[in-house]
C-alpha cells in the first residue's frame, strides 16, 4: 500500500517551507530535524539581507 504522506529531512527555512506548502495542500508532512528544535541557520541570524528584518 502506498502512502500520501511526505517526510521532510531538515528543519531549516527550506524544510519548514516545504512542509508548510504540503500541509496547506492537505498533505501530512513529517518534519524531521536532528537538533533539539527546528529553525536552522536562519534562527541564528538576528537580521537578514536584503530587508534587514528580524529572522525569527
Amino acid at each position, binding site marked *: 500500500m502506498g502512502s500520501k*504522506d*511526505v*517526510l521532510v529531512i*531538515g528543519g531549516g527555512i527550506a524544510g519548514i517551507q516545504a512542509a508548510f506548502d504540503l500541509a496547506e495542500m492537505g498533505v501530512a508532512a513529517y518534519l524531521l530535524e536532528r537538533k533539539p528544535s527546528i529553525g536552522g*541557520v536562519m534562527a541564528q541570524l*538576528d537580521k537578514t*539581507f*536584503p530587508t534587514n528584518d528580524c529572522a525569527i
Partner: protein
Amino acid sequence: MLDAGRHPNIKILAYSEVQGLEGKAGDFTVQYLKKARYIKEEVCTACGACAEKCPIKADNDFEMGLKKRKAIYIYFPQGIPAVYTIDPEHCPMILKGKCGLCAKLCQAGAIDYEQKDEKKTLHVGAVIVATGVTQFDPSVVTEYGYGRIKNVITGLEYERLISASGPTKGHLYRPSDEKLAKRVAYIQCVGSRSLKYKDYCSSVCCMYAIKDAMLAREHDEEAESYIFYSDFRVMGKRYQQYRLRGAEDYGIKYIRGRVAEIIEDAEGNPVLWYEDTRTRQVKSLTVDMVVLCSAAVPSKGVEQLAEVLGIELTPNRFVKTDPFHPTDTTVPGIFVCGFCQNPKDIAESVSQASGAASRAAGLLGITSSGKRTVA
C-alpha cells in the same frame, strides 16, 4: 517557523535521525531514531527552573561556543518544540547516577533519566531533503590566524555577537578583552572560490558581510567597516542597490583585494596585509576585529544521509540534480531544496522549497485544493 509548529498537518520530529529507507516512490518505509531527551516532551512546560539551578556548564552550539549553557538546556528560547533537553555527555546523573537536582526542581515532573533512544518507522510516499548549510572551519587557512588570533572570528560567530538575543546582547565586544570593536574588517572568499579548498562561490557572503557592516553602524554610529572582496556577487533582486546603500548610507569601505596575511599586534588588534588591486599598492590596516566570511558548505553528515537514501552527491557534497530538474535527486520520489542542493540565500531557499513541495505533491497526485485527483 511558528506557523509550521502550529499547523495541524505538520508533525515535527525533532532530535531525530534517519537511519534507513526502503521501497520506492509512492511507497517508502523510513526508519529513524528519536533520541532520548530525558524529558517527557508532553509534560515539560519550558519554565526553565531546571536549567537555572543545574550546576554543569557545557558549550552552547547555537551560540557558536560564545556562551555556555547548562547540561539541561533549551536549544534556543524561541525553539520549537519548546521543551528542554538533557545533554547526556555532560549530565552527571546520566553519566554516573549522581545529582538529580533537576528532577527535584521540576514541578511538572517532566524529567525522566531512564528514557531511551527509540527506533521508529514511518510510511511515506515521498521524501524531501533539506539539510542545509554550515561554515567551513577557516583554521586551515593558517595565514588568517583563526583559532590563534582571538579577534578573528567567523561570519556565524559575528551573527550571534550582533544579535540582541545573543551572548553580548548585540554589542560587539571582541573576544580577547571585551573591548567594543569599532573598526571591523570582513574578508570574503575564505576557502571559497579557491583551488586549494572549495572551488565554488558560496553566494551569500558578499551580501551578509554588507548586512553585518550595516548592523554594526546601526548599533554604533562610530563603527567603521572594511569589506575585502574579490569581486562583488550581489545578484538577487535589489541586491546591487543594497550594496550601493552600504557605501552611501552606512559608510562601508569596499576594498578590492585578497588579504595575504593577518598578524596580531601587542594589544591583540589584527593587522591585515593586503594588496589594494585598484591602486596596486601593498598596504596594511589595523582593526579591532576581523570577520572571516568562510565558505558555506553542506551540513556535516550529508554523506551518511545520502548513503542511507541512495542519492548521489556532487564532489563538493551538494545533492546532485540536473539543471532542468533542480529539485529532483537521482532517486525518484526523493526531492531536494535549500542550501544542500547548491549555495543560496533564504529567498531562493524558500522558492525552491515550494518547488520541491509541488513536485512531491505532483508525484502523489495531490492538488492544491487538498483533494486527490481521480485518474
